[in-house]
């Protein structure tokens, strides 16, 4: 799916406020949770994108045009709309997401687009509190947008709260069916604070609402004053100050200060002015009580921030505020200042009596709101708008051409695992070169000879050809694809050895020459062919991977990572991530091998186990890992290293000896699947380095995520695409050794961080790499035109 984002908010002041916080958090997470989608953003200034982290920037296609500059000159909207529609057409966009459609300082489309549209309505404040100072042009434009969102059938609406939805029904429309309430969140990693129940030396009540009429600062000051008068006998309460965060114009501040002075509260009310985020977090943590007398909120983000910081909440009871705080606040009506004052005092008394357990419960409630969840719901809402599966419809027929177990190839196993998930969407027949007697059966799936396809080709709606580097298993499949056409799935970005061995060396030189020409044009293709003939050697695989030929021949091409797609640079290429399949149950408790027993013994003795999975090849950088182990031992860490696989590096023992870690390294040799899973289970930190790497999928990496393991990968190519929250990235340069030592040391000495990394990996595997989700992405890619 291709999703276009209206990026105007990046270029307005709102980016630093609630809407910007929403947009940044939801956007960065949605991209992390779905590697299969392609994301586009339109901006007027290319520097605006730098407001996002580098990882997200790399995954976004940025489209720059002055037409996307935000503003209040609505005469520019026809041009703005045309520019958006051009992008929709050019990139075949499925969904246009406008995260901020009702703010007056951004432009909005003046007629519907040809794709699905999602808008996020944060609130309907101008309807609830009609602004007296709005120019007519803004009021008219606001109404136009509301009516367009209401009337256009291809616009779906996200709302921040049930309260906003109720307002929508009340003011705009009582029968719009495409509304989804998706609550916001607060950044727990910033605001969460494990607070101890200790008396404050300089206690204060915090107010962060702002100076807008709707925020009701007047009410806050009046209530604070009345509470002090009503309870002047409570010396402890009188110690409390009211700290007001926020900036406004000088005149306004002067007036507020005068009000405070008139009430004789100059010493008790503190105006901080603007504070940095760092200071804001400190103030949340230092405050005992959080006072929120707002008259209306689409969603009260500050309430969540305060709850996460451990503050006791005293809040107004209107709009979305009870949805946010649940039972964890003292509420009041903003209509009665005396009751506000009483609630403030009651909140203070409750706070005094509450235990640390009470604080924890409130924090846990706030933690239930998560940006991850907001992003997942938004993503699924977007995906749902383009859903083309009609319940009860006949599944299309799909022919899959693939090696098949017991053929000893990863692609055979991959297909064996994936096809049950694809069968939810397709009626599948497998065509394979595997001898009939050796084919592993799969329930409800017909498995036939490759040759049988020619007789039954008319029965199939789609054809999917599995292309890998082993000409023994893939040559016939490739030949068939050249003849029949269809969709290709490339498992290895570099196919040069496959074509060289399978065609040139097999005497099919004309075909080989044609493949080179298809990859690199007639002139270069011919030159490469002449070089091959002359040197009897295939071209440099790094420069000439030859997978371009597969793209040229196929109708569409599936690759497993964005790096490979970028190298191919073809509109035909689509990314479907390598799924993380559930670990089979039968893998538990196999008979222990000697190696496994040794490692178990090490663990009993308190050693941490580093592990490298699969064949030991030079490109897995065993030297780097062994050198790091040597340094860790020198520093006195209890750590051992296991290579779970067979050794293909002649000098490995030499490297081990040189680093004086002979007693600390184990090479397991070949492991069957059951012992292999047990090996992953026993490993504390998996080091999965590759250099050079050419876009190959790593099944062991996905299995490590699935088994909730802390993993360190090389920071290059396809590995860079996994979020930093899921695995740690090791720079590929001359500092890698030092950084690797520090990563491992930290993970060993901070088990809570390692555990967090493990949880993240497991959750990522279960959601973003779920074969159930990815099967749906296969369906979309295969069945929809590009």
């Amino acid at each position, binding site marked *: 799916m291709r999703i276009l984002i209206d990026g105007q908010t990046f270029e307005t002041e709102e980016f630093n406020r609630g809407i910007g916080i929403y947009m940044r958090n939801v956007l960065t*997470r949605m991209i992390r*949770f779905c590697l299969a989608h392609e994301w586009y953003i339109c901006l007027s200034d290319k520097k605006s994108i730098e407001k996002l982290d*580098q990882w997200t920037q*790399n995954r976004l296609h940025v489209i720059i045009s002055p037409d996307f500059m935000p503003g209040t000159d609505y005469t520019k909207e026809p041009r703005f709309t045309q520019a958006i529609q051009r992008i929709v057409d050019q990139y075949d966009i499925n969904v246009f997401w406008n995260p901020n459609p009702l703010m007056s300082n951004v432009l909005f489309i003046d007629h519907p687009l040809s794709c699905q549209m999602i808008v996020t309505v944060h609130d309907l404040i101008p309807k609830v509190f009609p602004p007296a100072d709005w120019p007519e042009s803004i009021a008219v434009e606001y109404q136009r947008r509301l009516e367009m969102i209401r009337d256009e059938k291809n616009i779906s609406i996200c709302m921040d709260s049930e309260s906003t939805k109720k307002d929508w029904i009340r003011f705009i429309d009582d029968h719009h069916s495409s509304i989804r309430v998706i609550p916001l969140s607060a950044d*727990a*990693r910033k605001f*969460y604070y494990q607070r101890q129940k200790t008396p404050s030396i300089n206690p204060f009540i915090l107010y962060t609402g702002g100076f807008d009429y709707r925020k009701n600062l007047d009410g806050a000051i009046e209530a604070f004053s009345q509470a002090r008068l009503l309870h002047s006998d409570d010396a402890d309460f009188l110690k409390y100050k009211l700290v007001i965060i926020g900036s406004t114009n000088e005149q306004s501040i002067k007036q507020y200060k005068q009000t405070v002075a008139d009430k004789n509260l100059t010493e008790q009310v503190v105006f901080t002015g603007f504070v940095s985020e760092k200071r804001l977090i400190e103030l949340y943590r230092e405050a005992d009580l959080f006072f929120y007398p707002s008259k209306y909120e689409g969603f009260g983000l500050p309430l969540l921030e305060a709850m996460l910081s451990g503050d006791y909440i005293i809040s107004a009871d209107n709009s979305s505020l009870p949805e946010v705080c649940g039972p964890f606040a003292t509420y009041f009506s903003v209509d009665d200042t005396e009751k506000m004052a009483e609630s403030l005092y009651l909140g203070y008394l409750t706070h005094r009596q509450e235990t640390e357990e009470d604080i924890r419960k409130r924090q846990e409630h706030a*933690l239930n709101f*998560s940006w*991850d*969840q907001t992003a*997942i719901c938004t993503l699924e809402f977007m995906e749902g708008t383009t859903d083309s599966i009609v319940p009860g419809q006949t599944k299309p027929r799909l022919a899959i051409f693939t090696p098949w177990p017991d053929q000893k190839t990863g692609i055979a196993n991959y297909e064996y695992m994936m096809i049950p998930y694809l069968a939810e969407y397709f009626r599948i027949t497998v065509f394979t070169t595997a001898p009939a007697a050796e084919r592993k059966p799969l329930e409800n799936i017909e498995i036939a000879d490759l040759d049988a396809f020619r007789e039954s080709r008319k029965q199939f709606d789609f054809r999917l050809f599995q292309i890998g580097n082993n000409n023994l298993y893939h040559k016939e499949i490739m030949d068939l694809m050249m003849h029949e056409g269809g969709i290709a799935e490339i498992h290895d970005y570099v196919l040069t050895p496959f074509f060289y061995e399978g065609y040139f060396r097999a005497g099919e030189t004309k075909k080989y020459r044609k493949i080179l020409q298809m990859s*690199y*044009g007639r*002139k*270069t*293709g011919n*030159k490469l062919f002449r070089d091959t003939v002359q040197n009897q050697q295939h071209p440099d695989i*790094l*420069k000439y991977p030859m997978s*371009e030929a597969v793209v040229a021949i196929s109708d569409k091409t599936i690759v497993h990572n964005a790096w490979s797609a*970028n*190298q191919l*640079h073809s509109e035909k290429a689509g990314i479907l991530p390598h799924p993380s399949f559930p670990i089979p149950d039968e893998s538990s408790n196999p008979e222990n091998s000697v190696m496994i027993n040794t490692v178990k013994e090490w663990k009993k003795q308190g050693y941490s186990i580093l592990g490298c999975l699969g064949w030991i090849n030079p490109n897995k950088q065993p030297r780097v890992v062994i050198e790091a182990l040597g340094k860790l031992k020198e520093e006195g860490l209890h750590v051992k290293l296991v290579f779970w696989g067979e050794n293909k590096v002649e000098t490995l023992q030499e490297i081990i000896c040189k680093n004086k870690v002979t007693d600390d390294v184990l090479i397991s040799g070949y492991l069957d699947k059951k012992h292999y899973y047990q090996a992953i289970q026993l490993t504390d930190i998996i080091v999965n380095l590759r250099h050079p790497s050419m876009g190959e999928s790593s099944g062991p990496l996905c299995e490590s995520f699935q088994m909730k393991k802390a993993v360190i990968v090389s920071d290059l190519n396809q590995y860079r695409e996994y*979020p*930093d*929250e899921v695995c*740690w*990235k090791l*720079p590929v*340069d*001359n*500092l890698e050794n*030092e*950084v690797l*030592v*520090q*990563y491992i040391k*930290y993970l060993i000495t901070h088990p*809570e*961080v390692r555990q*967090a*990394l493990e*949880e*993240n990996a497991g*959750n*990522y595997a279960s*959601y973003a790499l779920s074969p159930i989700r990815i099967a749906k992405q296969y369906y979309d890619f295969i069945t929809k035109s590009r």
Partner: protein
Amino acid sequence: MYNEKIDVAEIMQQIKSEASRIAVAERLKESGILVSEQTCQEMLLEIEELTETIRFARNDLHDSRNVGGIIPSYTRFPAPIRQFFRFFSKGMRKGIQFVIQDQVDVNSQIDTILEAMEKKETLMLQLILQLNTAAAPDEQKTI
């Protein structure tokens, strides 16, 4: 989905920065140059900036490569590649010894350049060289 209380991504970045800073400072010390914290940070930023530029330029290079063969003139490169060359020139001013010719074989020379630029070691040694030669003999030990 991700642990809400511990920001493991941020921790990773901190460890990486700190380990890199210490390692660069140590290597510069080994080469006989005393480098201030600020210089060290600036150098790291410079290297980071250059490698990022390379990363972005790489896709554009592959665009050119796809049209096949040798591209005859600098002016026929797409704008991002020209921009890359400007950065490359900047690298040269810092002591990297490559020659840009009118006739550039994209398939060979660019990769050599990229490889050299991506290996921070090469770049860093050249930076050290440049720092060494830039300083007067009696100041050479302290920058």
